[in-house]
Each structure stands twice: as structure tokens, then as C-alpha cells.
């Protein structure tokens, strides 16, 4: 038998104490991992969404920023319009390399095509597009033709079908983009000509027509020349083109970032309180247990255990309970995030993307370390106190 085995036997023999300490470790690790996964997942999602949009500046009709961000981030379709001639105006502004228009459309509500009741659709101009086309060229070696679409990672045809029916028009899904955890994952991308074709045929083929106001666009994706000042270009757009709002990529999804910052602050406060309470509770449980086991520890000292052995043995018990509790907590938190991620996204109104296996492993390790550190910190004082006690006094009491 060694110190580790002795600690293990003591843990299994003191079920209530072990349960309380392990439960605290479980809650700490689960809460820490859950919130980290959630916030990091949301942050990751935002970053990927900005990368996917690929624009330095997104120009939208004045006052529609929140709607557009909501559509791009949460997949809530929106219809916003501005005159098409803003593209030309923007393209001539010094510092602008490319200005490419997009149309924001939506499928019919409850359409049979889709996994969501109202699917977001983005139409782009293949002549100027620099967001979807480069990806298509890399992936398929060619752009989309009439009637062809690409979808977010959640877009797929119904089982047994090759095509997706949009307003009674059959489009062919050519590829799926990588997941971002945002509304872009449930968005259909098509060219202007396909959108116009769907719109014209929808008048006879669909329950309701897809209406695209003439000479109108929803947004302009702007790429600035390398070395140009993004703020200066944005300011210039504001001055030159009335009725639009330029959103710089760094400022995209500001309202969601604020929401997440608020959420993070709340979580940090709750976690701080939970952590403090856990430390106090574990410390109390250990103090009580050490007092209960005073005689037993005195006996060990009489049998030849050093102060260090007693100290290490108590901390070994604490560590084992922390690891057992934290492992259970991590499993529960991981499972909860995996199973309820969509529900969490909708409830909290934030995007979310599961991390890679490597990053997840790193966070699991961090969760375990947090639980280990916390439980050992709580057990430290009782362990020091009991290990320094005179064995004769300990056995007498």
C-alpha cells in the first residue's frame, strides 16, 4: 500500500465528505467549461463570420445595421433596400478597391425546402464579388451558373432529392461552405441572375412571388486598397453617399459583442461568487473531516507517519476528489453544450461554434486544473493545521 492507495481507500470510506467535495469540483469544472465553451464558441463564430463575409467595409441602408447583423449572424431573414447606384458612387471613392452589391432575400415561410421556417438567401454579383467567388474557384474551379447555389453547412436537399425547391424553382446545390456557427450556416448563396430568374418565375410557380425591387440592392461589400486607411474610407462613404451606413469589419456585430461582454461580466461575477463559496464549503468540509479524523491522523503519526506524509495524504485525497468531480463535471458540461447548443444559441441570441478537438482538450485540461487548484487551496489550511498538531494531543481529544 502507498500514499495514493491509502487516500483512495479513505475517499471510498467517507462517502458523504467525498460526495460534497466532488460535487463542488463538479460544479466548478462544469460551470467553467460550459461558460468558456459558450463564450469562446461565440467569439470564434463571430470571427469566422467576419472572415466569411470577407469585406473590409459592409455598406447597408442607414438604420438597418442591427437587422443586417441579425440576418448574417442569426439567420433571421431581412429585406433592406437602397438604390443600386450607390455601388458606383462607392466604387469611385479613393481607397476603394472593389465594391460588390448583394441582395438579401428570404424563402417563403414554412417552405418545404428548408430546415428552418424562413431561410435567408444572399444573391451576389459574380462580376464584382470577392467573397463567395474566390471560394468557389478554389473549391470547384468555376463560379455558379444559372440555377446553381451554394449553401451554408446546414443547407441540404430533402432526402432522395438532388435539388432544392425555392419559390417553386429547382436550384442545384453545388457545395456547402464550412460551418461558422452563425446564420450564414443556414443561408443560400446564388448569383443575381439566378435570383432574378427565381423572382420572375415565382409569379406563376409559387404561392407568393419573390419580390426584388428594381434597381435596388441590400448591401455593398467593400474591399479597400492595401495600405488605405479604413476609417478614412468609411468617413468618405458617409460623406459622399447619403442614406447609407458603412460598417467596418472590426466593428461588425457590435451589438452582439456588447451582449456577449455583458454576458461575460455576469458569468464572471456568478463564477467568482460560486468559486468563493465552493472554496469556503470545501474548506469547511475538510476542517470538519480533519477534526473528525484527528485521532486517526494521530495514530498514523504514532505509527511513523511524518508531518509531510499527513499533509500530502490529505492533499492527495483532495486531489483525487477534485479529479473525480471535475471529470464528471466536464463530461456533463461537454454533453450539455453538444446536445443543447442550438437551444442555447436561440435562448441567448448569440452564435456558437463547437471548438476543434485540440482546443476542447485544452479547455478540459484547464477545467481539471481549476478544480484541482481550488480544492487543494480549500484543503490547504486544514491540512497544514492538522499535520502540525502534536499527535499525543490529537489522540487525546
Amino acid at each position: 500500500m502507498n500514499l495514493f492507495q491509502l487516500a483512495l481507500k479513505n475517499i471510498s470510506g467517507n462517502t458523504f465528505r467525498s460526495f460534497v467535495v466532488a460535487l463542488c469540483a463538479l460544479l466548478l469544472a462544469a460551470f467553467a467549461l460550459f461558460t468558456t465553451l459558450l463564450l469562446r464558441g461565440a467569439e470564434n463564430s463571430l470571427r469566422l463570420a467576419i472572415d466569411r463575409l470577407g469585406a473590409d467595409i459592409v455598406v447597408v441602408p442607414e438604420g438597418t445595421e442591427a437587422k443586417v447583423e441579425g440576418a448574417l449572424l442569426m439567420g433571421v431573414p431581412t429585406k433592406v433596400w437602397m438604390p443600386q447606384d450607390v455601388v458606383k458612387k462607392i466604387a469611385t471613392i479613393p481607397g476603394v478597391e472593389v465594391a460588390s452589391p448583394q441582395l438579401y432575400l428570404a424563402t417563403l415561410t414554412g417552405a418545404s425546402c428548408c430546415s428552418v421556417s424562413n431561410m435567408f438567401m444572399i444573391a451576389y454579383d459574380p462580376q464584382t464579388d470577392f467573397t463567395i467567388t474566390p471560394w468557389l474557384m478554389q473549391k470547384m474551379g468555376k463560379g455558379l451558373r444559372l440555377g446553381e447555389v451554394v449553401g451554408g453547412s446546414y443547407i441540404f436537399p430533402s432526402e432522395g432529392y438532388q435539388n432544392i425547391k425555392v419559390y417553386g424553382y429547382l436550384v442545384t446545390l453545388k457545395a456547402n461552405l464550412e460551418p461558422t456557427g452563425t446564420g450564414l450556416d443556414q443561408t443560400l448563396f446564388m448569383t443575381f441572375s439566378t435570383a432574378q430568374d427565381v423572382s420572375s418565375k415565382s409569379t406563376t410557380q409559387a404561392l407568393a412571388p419573390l419580390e426584388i425591387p428594381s434597381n435596388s440592392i441590400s448591401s455593398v461589400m467593400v474591399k479597400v486598397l492595401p495600405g488605405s486607411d479604413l476609417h478614412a474610407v468609411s468617413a468618405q462613404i458617409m460623406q459622399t453617399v447619403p442614406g447609407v451606413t458603412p460598417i467596418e469589419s472590426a466593428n461588425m456585430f457590435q451589438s452582439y459583442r456588447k451582449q456577449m461582454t455583458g454576458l461575460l461580466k455576469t458569468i464572471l461575477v456568478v463564477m467568482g461568487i460560486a468559486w468563493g463559496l465552493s472554496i469556503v464549503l470545501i474548506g469547511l468540509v475538510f476542517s470538519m473531516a480533519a477534526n473528525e479524523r484527528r485521532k486517526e491522523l494521530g495514530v498514523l503519526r504514532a505509527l511513523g507517519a511524518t508531518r509531510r506524509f499527513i499533509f500530502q495524504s490529505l492533499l492527495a485525497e483532495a486531489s483525487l476528489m477534485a479529479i473525480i468531480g471535475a471529470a464528471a463535471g466536464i463530461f456533463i458540461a461537454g454533453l450539455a453544450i453538444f446536445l443543447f447548443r442550438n437551444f442555447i444559441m436561440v435562448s441567448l441570441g448569440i452564435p456558437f461554434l463547437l471548438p476543434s478537438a485540440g482546443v476542447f482538450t485544452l479547455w478540459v485540461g484547464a477545467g481539471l486544473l481549476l478544480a484541482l487548484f481550488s480544492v487543494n487551496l480549500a484543503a490547504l489550511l486544514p491540512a497544514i493545521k492538522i499535520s502540525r498538531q502534536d499527535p499525543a494531543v490529537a489522540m487525546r481529544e
Partner: protein
Amino acid sequence: MITLDSITKTYQIAKGNSVPAVRGVDLEIDRGEFIIIVGRSGSGKTTLLNLAAGLTRPTSGKVMLEGTNLWDLSDQQQSFLRSQRIGFVFQFPSLLPTLTVYDNVILPTIFCGGTSNGAEHARAAELLDKVGLADKLQAYPRQLSAGQQQRVVIARALMNKPQVLLADEPTSNLDEQTELEIMELFRDLHTSLGITIVMVTHTRTLVSYGTRYIEMANGLVVNGKA
């Protein structure tokens, strides 16, 4: 083997309020002796035993184990010495409730660098056989009677082949018959193994088991040869 030189132990109860438990006692424990220390409750006999084992620091005086002052040693050296040279039998139930009888018996081997090997297993089995509990290896303390538990404690005390066995009122919680059995066991261990035994008791009739007795009162040796 163990020498207590002008040993005094005073317990501080509250600020400025102290109780002298042992007052300037000299005691020489020689190899092979079976010393019985008798006295009423509070006479200082248990404190004297604890002082002899280095379990409590004397207020003044020296505790010498084979010429070495115990309190000149580090905690590690003192603990190692205790694990190798001294066996303990306590008045209260002192088996670890979470360990089996076997694990309790081999427990002292952890403290002198022992490993779980065949020799240890054989020694534990032999000792449990000697105390008549060979069939209780895998039992837990709660499954044993008070007398059986005390026998396991004796087996545990002998595990590291100590030179001296210190027993603090080992029969006070036992019925008369079990008390006699345990005392016979001590006598047998003393004669067959030649082990030095120092036993504290408040039962004067047990004095006859020893080779020498000491009587204590108010922290002083009042009778017998110290």
C-alpha cells in the same frame, strides 16, 4: 534502551493557566523488560508513555532512545525511528475504518519505505495467525468485536518488528475474559519474541503480568523502581 531524564510536561490550558501532567520523572526502560505503569486517571501515566515515544515534546528534560535525544532529530528522522523501533497499542479503537484487517496490519510498512510484496503479506498473515485472526484478513474493523480489534492492533504494532511495544490501557474497553486473553497474548509476545513492553493501566491486578511496575500519582512516580 529508553531513558527519560528529569522529564516534565506541562499543558497550557488557557493563557496563564497550565496543568503539570508529568513532573521531573526519571525512567530507565531496559531491553526485554515488561513494565506496567499503574495509576489513577490523570496521574500522568499516558503522558509519560507519549513522552517515551516522542509523541509529545517535553516541557523540560530529555528523552533518549538508545543514546539519541529524540528531540534533537528532525520530524522525518523521529518518525522513521518510531516506525522501526516502537509499536503502539492504544486504549481507543485505532484501526482505520476504511481499511481491511490486512491493510491495517501492513499500514506501518508504508512509513519505513515498505512495498506491497510477498514478505509483507506473509508477515501480516503470520501475525494475524499469532493473535488468532488468520481468517479475518479481508474483514473490516466494524465486522470485528472490540477484543478482536485490539488483537489486530497488536498485530499491526508488531508488523515492523519493533524493539519496544507501548500499550496505553489496551484492555480498558474490554470485558474481563477478553482482558485476560489480551494480557496472556502480551505475556506470550514478551516471552516468545523477547520484546520490551511498557503498558499503562489503571487496573492494579494486571501488575502481576509485568517484570516491573511503577505507580504514578500527580505526575510523579510514587511507587516502584523507576
